[in-house]
């Protein structure tokens, strides 16, 4: 295992690792605000839940992009 393979492995790990930081913060904020909104107005809970799921899916996609790059890189060395 030479240094090239090692660097590709490192890049794959960092790719998915760093890609989860910002979306996780964003999703946490969104979920928190959604909880507050439901607490303020419980009869709107269904609409808020739907919008919450959609917003979480958008942020999830950003992490998935990082995961895809990690898979591609790992495919090169194994």
């Amino acid at each position, binding site marked *: 295992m030479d240094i090239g393979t090692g660097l590709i492995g490192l890049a794959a790990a960092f790719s998915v690792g760093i890609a989860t930081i910002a979306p996780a913060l964003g999703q946490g904020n969104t979920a928190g605000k959604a909880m507050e909104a439901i607490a303020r107005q419980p009869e709107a809970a269904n609409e808020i839940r739907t919008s919450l799921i959609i917003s979480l*899916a958008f942020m999830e*996609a950003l992490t998935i992009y990082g995961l895809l790059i990690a898979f*591609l890189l790992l*495919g090169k060395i194994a």
Partner: protein
Amino acid sequence: MFWTKAAYAAESGGTDHGPQILFSLFGLDVTSETTTMWGIMLLLAIASYLATRNMKRIPSGIQNVMEFAVEGIINLLSGIMGEERAKKYLPLLGSLFLFILISNYSGVLPGAGHTPGLKAPTSNWSVTLGLALVVFMSTQYYGVKERGLKYFKHFFEPLPFMFPLNIIEQMVRPLSLSLRLYGNVFGEEMVVAGLFALVPLIVPLPMMILGLLFGFIQAFVFTLLASIYIAEATEVHHH
């Protein structure tokens, strides 16, 4: 390392080899994803036929299920584009939703990925890119059909120098649509394969349950985004 076993077990399209080709038909290669797509088409066609023959006023059985699904989709679309446009674009968007939902779930069937002939179609970027391009082409087509050639004026809308940015935004849409769907389904499949290579018995189960949840959410989000794009393209301002 276990990764090679997982890669072999998932038989996925890595960077070395493409999807496993089963046979050739009229000069085109047929892969496992294609045969699974045929199976899904057959399933949807038969279910629709069974649900709509002898239609009763008060539904029961499979007609009830289909009416529930169609009404759910119309409610979702009405929230975005209003009732009459929702009914107009229901064939395209409803088919997208049902097809993506069933093909996301077909990856959880026993033997998916291992047996030749059964593999979730949306776990291949080619399929999801095809779906995203269908959505892209339909937005342009419906936009021109509703608004005529003045549809292209909206690229210059807020300020004329925004034209390159608007074009880039239009081009990025199919990319993000396809990658979101592909990444979710392929990623879930790879993680299940990796967990399976480690501990075959109970451990992959939580990930598969998450896969069921995310499969539905991704089908929902794809259809929602497609409907938002079409609604935005066919926006006709009444004076």
